[in-house]
């Protein structure tokens, strides 16, 4: 579904990604892990078009997407959330989701004639909010939500764009144990809706519990990939994590 082909990215003298290739298969829950500064967020930014790769390319559903502006990539079916949450703070919870449902309209004259507040949209928005456990908060301003709920709202907004591939940047960070367990449950529901997930995570227990497939980056290079069990036994992975003091426990 998504193919990252020999992607490099440098910021001035810093090589954040060095010829990374990997593939995300449809229907998977795919994890992208690695120590801090490994280049994971940079990889997301390249996939969804915020950054252009210095070399290499990204293909989605057989078409080259690197070089397209992010709103075009969103239109093609890639949605994302952010490591530092970026909800629309002054909009209400339901408005955040409704705003996410206009990707076709935002690029047409429909922006001047159509309202997001039609029955069908509202129904779908409420379903998404229910899925993410936010239904009771629909009329609150997004900024009033605690961080864990804002993360869920970002997921709901991303799902509102009807994506085929959902990119989640550290969705479990800042969540307590119970919220993390709920998140794993949510991942599976989303996958069952036919949405492929690629997520970045630090929490190893969470990652190993929910992912079907894991790609590991370290210092901008892919050092391992495979099933969670295989990866967690890989000496290079263990070394990378020990080297930074992060624990690894599958």
């Amino acid at each position, binding site marked *: 579904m998504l193919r990252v082909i020999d992607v490099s990215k440098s910021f001035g003298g810093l090589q954040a990604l060095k010829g990374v290739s990997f593939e995300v298969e449809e229907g998977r829950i795919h994890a992208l892990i690695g120590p801090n500064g490994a280049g994971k967020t940079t990889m997301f930014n390249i996939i969804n078009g*915020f950054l252009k790769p210095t070399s290499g390319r990204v293909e989605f559903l057989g078409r080259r997407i690197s070089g397209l502006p992010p709103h075009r990539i969103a239109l093609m079916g890639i949605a994302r959330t*952010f490591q530092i949450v*970026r909800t629309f703070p002054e909009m209400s919870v339901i408005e955040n989701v409704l705003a996410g449902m*206009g990707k076709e309209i*935002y690029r047409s004259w429909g922006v001047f004639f159509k*309202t997001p*507040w039609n029955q069908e949209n509202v129904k779908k928005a409420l379903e998404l909010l229910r899925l993410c456990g936010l239904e009771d908060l629909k009329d609150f301003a997004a900024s009033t939500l605690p961080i864990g709920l804002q993360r869920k709202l970002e997921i709901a907004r991303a799902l509102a764009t009807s994506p085929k591939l959902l990119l989640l940047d550290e969705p479990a960070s800042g969540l307590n144990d119970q919220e993390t367990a709920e998140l794993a449950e949510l991942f599976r529901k989303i996958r069952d809706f036919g949405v492929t997930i690629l997520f970045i995570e630090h929490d190893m227990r969470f990652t190993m519990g929910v992912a079907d497939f894991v790609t590991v980056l370290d210092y901008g290079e892919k050092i391992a990939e495979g099933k969670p069990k295989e990866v967690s036994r890989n000496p290079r992975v263990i070394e990378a994590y020990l080297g930074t003091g992060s624990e690894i426990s599958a």
Partner: protein
Amino acid sequence: MTLDYLYTLITFSNIFIILSLSLNVLIGYAGQVSLGHAAFFGIGAYTSAVLAVKFGLGYGTTLLLSVLIGGFFGFLLGLPSLRVRHDFLVLATIGLNFVVVALFKYIDFFGGPYGIIGLPAAKFFGKELGTGGYALYTAFWVVIVILLMIYIEKIYLRYGFEAIRENEDAAESIGVSVPLFKIYAFTISGALAGLAGNLWAYQMGMVFPDDFSFPVSITILTMVVLGGVGTISGPILGAVLLTFLPELLRFIQDYRLLLYGIIIVIVMMYQPSGLLGRQGILRKAFKR
């Protein structure tokens, strides 16, 4: 206060309501700072003055062209806004204001420092309106613009605007083209300021470069900020207050800009969302 004088004030107030609502599209809805809004006001006014005085065009045509050309220049200013950073945009808009006024002043075609005089009165079905009639006519446009704002708040356009205002990256990630929506905001804002310019030119019967200078931009900005950025009622209240108060308190006149500076600072410190904004004291008072 004579009745004519009151009608004139009402007309000014109406024109500034349209100006502050149009600036609000840019600042309040789309989050794009502009400190040069009087430039579009001036472009609209000069468009009507030139077309009416030099080309003898009728009122309907000058009105339409003021709106279109105002919108076109809004569009043009929107283009560099796609490239420059936020703080730079502030400077660019100030610069635009000075450039436009300088062009009016130094190009003979625009009448130079003495402006263009002798606009005929606006005629409707062959009849001239008196001062009272013109006040009513401008009020008609205020109603139209308010209805337009209410409409905008309901459609996708506003969601796109809000998205780019609150977070450009998040906006792009849901399919909103940030450049496109900036252009929409600048164009709509410019077109409405052009409308205000037309109304001004025919009210005064003449146009002068200094009527559209930087302090006028600050006046409009103060109206929006005082009343409540991002609301409809706020800019209206701000425009009415700042049109009538200085007239009632004559001694303020000479210190207008100082007063506006103080108002902006005080509002930013104590009422950052404006009197009628989400956290505004007046909004809360009305809710009780």
